[in-house]
Structures are given as structure tokens and as C-alpha cells.
């Protein structure tokens, strides 16, 4: 199958970017979106054109690297998948597909479709680690966690740090990401001792790095490939308020 790929080209962080349209041929129906980009790059290199830089690693939806904005949606038209799990069967043959990097002040473009999501790492670092020693198996068995709490915590821990929530939010807020991280630990006894401090530190770091405020538009939740819900934002707000009161 063939497609027209209208893609953002930007030589480096300082250069001015622009759209360029390329024709890609010979794409199998079962190919993934990233495989289509591999094929296009192969064709570009053979024509003497610089290949399109894009981020990816695990290619199975668990690392969060493949941050592409496709036809106006983070991770493209399919729901609850990362770009690497998006397949070409979702596009009409011959279609023109627009591919952009995440657009957010906190994620500057490195090259073409690759952005620097280092800001997320800084937020995580600000959160710190848990001080409880995890101990041996019998210790784990002595700390009982209800099935529902464990499930909720796992739902939050499913966040892969892709940044789709930020890219989708009209305010460029990282609330869903921060909420997922705060929630997954706050729901477990091992994460409780620092829960309030963690919420405060991560929110402060998020503000410092230039992410916007959350106005509850729920756009993030709609585009999160891992189905992290805004219930976690409510939990984050609770932890945050607790931290403020206990100050």
C-alpha cells in the first residue's frame, strides 16, 4: 500500500521546522506505524534524503518512547495504544497522514519528531524513593494490601511516561503523569510515609519546569494509551492538600 506522509522536519533544537510531504510505497497491511516509518526512511536514504528521526525502543507499548502526534491525535487514531502498537490497517490506502512531534514548551524538539522528555525524569527524581526497606518475602506477606488497592495502584503504575497527556492538554499540564506516579505509591503501605512530601515535591517541580495548570478538561484521560484515569488526579490533589495543611 502507499501513503503520503506529511511530516515535521526540524534539523535541531535551534533550527526552524517545517512540513515536508513524502510518498511511501510497498507498505504491507499488517505493518505497524513505526514499520511504515522504517520503510519510508529506507526509501529516503536510498534517494539521498536524510531519514526522519523518531523515538522508539521497546516497540510493544511498555517504554513510552514512541511519542508521535498523528493526524491531530497523540499516538494516532486507535484508542488506548502507543504509536508502536498502531497498525496501518487503520489508515485508508493512499491517505495523507500528518505526523508531528509532541508540541509542548516543556518538551523541546531535538530533531524532527524527537523531543526531549527529560522534564519527566526531573519530576520523577523530585519524587524521590521510598524509605521503607522492602525486606524479605515473609515481610511482604505480613503487610496486607487489599485486592482493590493493589489493582488501583497497578492501574496507575501502568503509566509509561509517554507524555501524550501533556501533548494533548491545551494547557500543557503534566497532571495525569504526576498523578499516576503519586497515586501508585500512595495507595501502597510502602509508599505512605513520604506520600505527602512526594506529592508536594513533584507538583513543585512540574510547575518549575513550565508545565501548565490542570483545568479538568479530561483530554489527557481520553488520549492516555494506558487508560490512566483522572480519578488519580483527585487522589493527587488530596495528597497535595494534606501536605499543605500539615506544613
Amino acid at each position, binding site marked *: 500500500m502507499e501513503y503520503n506522509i506529511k511530516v515535521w522536519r526540524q*534539523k*535541531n533544537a535551534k533550527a526552524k521546522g517545517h512540513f515536508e510531504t513524502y510518498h511511501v510505497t510497498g507498505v504491507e497491511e*499488517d505493518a505497524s506505524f513505526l*514499520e511504515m516509518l522504517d520503510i519510508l526512511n*529506507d526509501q529516503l536514504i*536510498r534517494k539521498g534524503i536524510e531519514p526522519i528521526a523518531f523515538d522508539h525502543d*521497546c516497540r510493544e*507499548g511498555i517504554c513510552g518512547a514512541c511519542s508521535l502526534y498523528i493526524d491531530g491525535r497523540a499516538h494516532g487514531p486507535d484508542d488506548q495504544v502507543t504509536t508502536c502498537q498502531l*497498525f496501518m490497517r487503520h489508515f485508508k490506502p493512499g491517505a495523507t497522514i500528518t505526523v508531528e512531534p509532541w508540541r509542548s514548551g516543556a518538551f523541546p524538539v531535538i*530533531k524532527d519528531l524527537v523531543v526531549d522528555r527529560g522534564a519527566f525524569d526531573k519530576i520523577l527524581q523530585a519524587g524521590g524513593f521510598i524509605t521503607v526497606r522492602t525486606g524479605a518475602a515473609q515481610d511482604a506477606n505480613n503487610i496486607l494490601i487489599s485486592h482493590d488497592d493493589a489493582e488501583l495502584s497497578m492501574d496507575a503504575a501502568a503509566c509509561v511516561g509517554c507524555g501524550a497527556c501533556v501533548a494533548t492538554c491545551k494547557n500543557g499540564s503534566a497532571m495525569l503523569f504526576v498523578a499516576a506516579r503519586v497515586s501508585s505509591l500512595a495507595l501502597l503501605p510502602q509508599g505512605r510515609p513520604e506520600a505527602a512530601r512526594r506529592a508536594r515535591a513533584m507538583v513543585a517541580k512540574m510547575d518549575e519546569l513550565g508545565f501548565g495548570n490542570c483545568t479538568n478538561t479530561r483530554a489527557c484521560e481520553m488520549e492516555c494509551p494506558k487508560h490512566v484515569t483522572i480519578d488519580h488526579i483527585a487522589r493527587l490533589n488530596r495528597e497535595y492538600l494534606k501536605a499543605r495543611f500539615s506544613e
Partner: protein
Amino acid sequence: MLDLVIINGQAKGIIARNLVTGEIERFGAHAVVLATGGYGNTYFLSTNAMNSNGSAAMQAYRKGAFFANPCFAQIHPTCIPVHGDQQCKLTLMSESLRNDGRIWVPKKMEDVMKLRKHEIKASQIPEEDRDYYLERRYPAFGNLVPRDVASRAAKERCDAGYGVNETGLAVFLDFADAIKRLGHQRVEERYGNLFQMYEKITSSSPWEEPMMIYPAIHYTMGGLWVDYDLQTTIPGLYAIGEANFSDHGGNRLGASALMQGLADGYFILPYTIGDYLSHKFAEPKTDINAPEFAEAEKAVKERIAKIFAVKGTETVDSIHKKLGHIMWEYVGMARNEEGLKKGIEEIGKLREEFWKTVRVPGTNEEFNQELEKALRLVDFFDIGELMARDALNRKESCGGHFREEMQTEEGETKRDDENFMYVAAWEYKGEGVAPELHKEDLKYENIKIATRNYKD
């Protein structure tokens, strides 16, 4: 990391390329720890992440660290089959599926043919015409035999012509019985997300038709040789996690890699590296202006310049794909003397082809993914060759390594403990020179070694 710096026989730092700016940077230290993962991507197609590579271990090997048991690679039985020649990455389906899924191929060749032509569906094949080959061959363990056994059994059926998709390289993993026995809800609780992921990828629903799976490279048991302190043969150079050869031996059980990550990084290294560092307190900070750093940096820059200078016509991936075919064909699930020799020869030819035909666009002084890939591929050639050499030397079937010459009448693995009960640690002897084999004998004091038996 593109090179290891050694001063007075001790590891003192690394040379790395800044991926964003291309700058070649020097880092000095009192010791170096490599936690750089395995080399499964030598095969091009594997379940490993795209950026996984064996380059750091290879640099250490070229600087004198022994590389142990390179031939031991694990092939995982439950991956989504290859769907053409445009794929770059294979997706793993969780092993837990084998707890309730039953693996089979048709008994009758005519059914196989109809399946391939999409004339019938798997669910239409009657029970008596299905060959649940794992249950047939291994009644005691059935579908729960270890990964290497399940993988080879799938290959055996597909080689015999019973593969169920167009490429002939797939078997069924069927949940119909489980759904009948446990009910929809229990199956949904256990495997719901996996079923959904499978359907997203293949657009076929495991609720209606069995999944199709095929083995793929997943993990490499071999790696840099280390002692009980996790130190390599170079003083001050440590290797942890999948990058070293320890813990797993010739095979690996599920979940044990994360166990190793924890054991090495959390329980062992923090206690052993201190011993080494305690002797270094008196030493000044490593000077990155030392001639050894300058030399290593120069070598890296020359390597990069040499790659750009080829200015050929072929993309890095297209050459890597060829390496993958050679590896899978000759150093894959079943190996033999003739094939391994041929493999070594083919890798040599492909390496030459690379240095004549590769085309890496752009420059070093920028974010350049093609250059990153090319640098890795240069090392994958050497790893592939080393794997084949080790496989050729090990004339026995052991763990993940299966030599066709060494099998029982029923096609099971046959070890040769008398001659091969050792760790094969290879020492680099220079470019184009055969590496030297060192043998570390394995002595078992507390267990009696036996032959694996999954039949009864």
C-alpha cells in the same frame, strides 16, 4: 559508550558519544560497571527493545575481558509470528498463556493447506484431527515444558510442514478448552489484557480463533565472564545483569532475569565493589587527559569517520536484516557443524559487504540514529561470529544450544558432560585472528547432575 579506557591494566573510564550533539566525551572513574544488557538483537528480529545492543560488552572484550558462553541464547516459544519481511521487532506474548492455552497443529496435511488458503478456520478442525504435540511428546509436563523444549517442538512440527499460517512458521495456542472449563469471566480476568493486545496487533480475536505463535530470540545467557564479585578479567571492570554470563548457565527460567538484576545490582555488587575501591582511596581522581583517554578517543573518532567514508548504497537496517537471516538459519534453534562453518563464512562476507556498501547519511555532529545503528552493527558482526564459533566448539546439546549431531533417537537434547562440562571463556586475540578458548571447569558439590526429563 563506545570504548573502555584502561590505564595500567585497570579499567579507568569510558569514551561515550553524546547522542544529541555527537560530541565524543571522556569519563574517568576508579572503576567501571557495565549494566548494558544482552545481545539478542544480533538476530535483527528479537523480542528485545530496538536499542538493545552488545556494543559495550564487545568493547570490553576487545580490550581483554573474556566473553563467556556466547552460544547460549534463549528462544521464547510464545511470540507473535513474523508477518513478512518489513518487520523490525517481534512481540512477546506472556508465557503465562501456556498455563491454560493448549498448543497444537493439524494432524492432516490437507487441513494445513486449507488453513493457509483461508478455506477453513482452526475452530472447524475436529478434535481428533488435532495434534497437541507437546501433550503427546511430554505427557508429564504437557504445554508447560521449558521454553527451549517448547520452541524446538514448534520448529520440529513446522519443519515437517505443519505450520499453520502462510509462511508455514506458526502453531496454534488455543483457549477454547480453557473458556469452556473456566468460563469467560475467569479467562478474562487472567488473560483479558493479553487477548486485547493480541487482537490489536493481529486483528484476530483469541476468543473466537486460537492465537498463532512462533519462537523468537528473547534473551542471551552468555556475556562477559565475571567472578563471584562480578568482576570481569579486567581489574576494575564489572558486569551486571544480562551483560554478564552468570546465574543462568546454558538456559534460563522465566522471571529469573529480573531476579538477576536485583541480585547483581542490589545484593552483590554494592558489597563486592567496595573491596576493590577500598584499595583505591590513596589514588588521585582519574585524569581524563591521560594519553590512554586520548588514544581511545582517537580510535572512536576514526571508527566513526571510517563508517561515513564508505558512502555506499545500502541502509544499515537492510544489512542488519541479512545478518539476522544468517544467524537464524545457521546459529538459530538447531545448529550443526556444516551450518555453523557456513555461518561464520557468511558473516565474514557480509562484514566485507558492509564496509563496501553501507550508507550513513548526515554527520557525526548531530542527532544521528543511522550512525548509532551502524556502530552497533559493526559489533553485532563480531558477536555473531563469536556465537557461531562457540556453538561450533560445543559439540553437545545443552540448555538453549542444540546441536543436531547430538540428539537422542526421539530428537531430545544429548549433553556430553565428559568433554563439555565447562564454561567457555573466549579471549580476544586481535582483528581477524581466532580467539583463544579458556575452560572453567564446572564442579557440582551439592547437587547430582541429571538429564532433564519431561516425559514422565
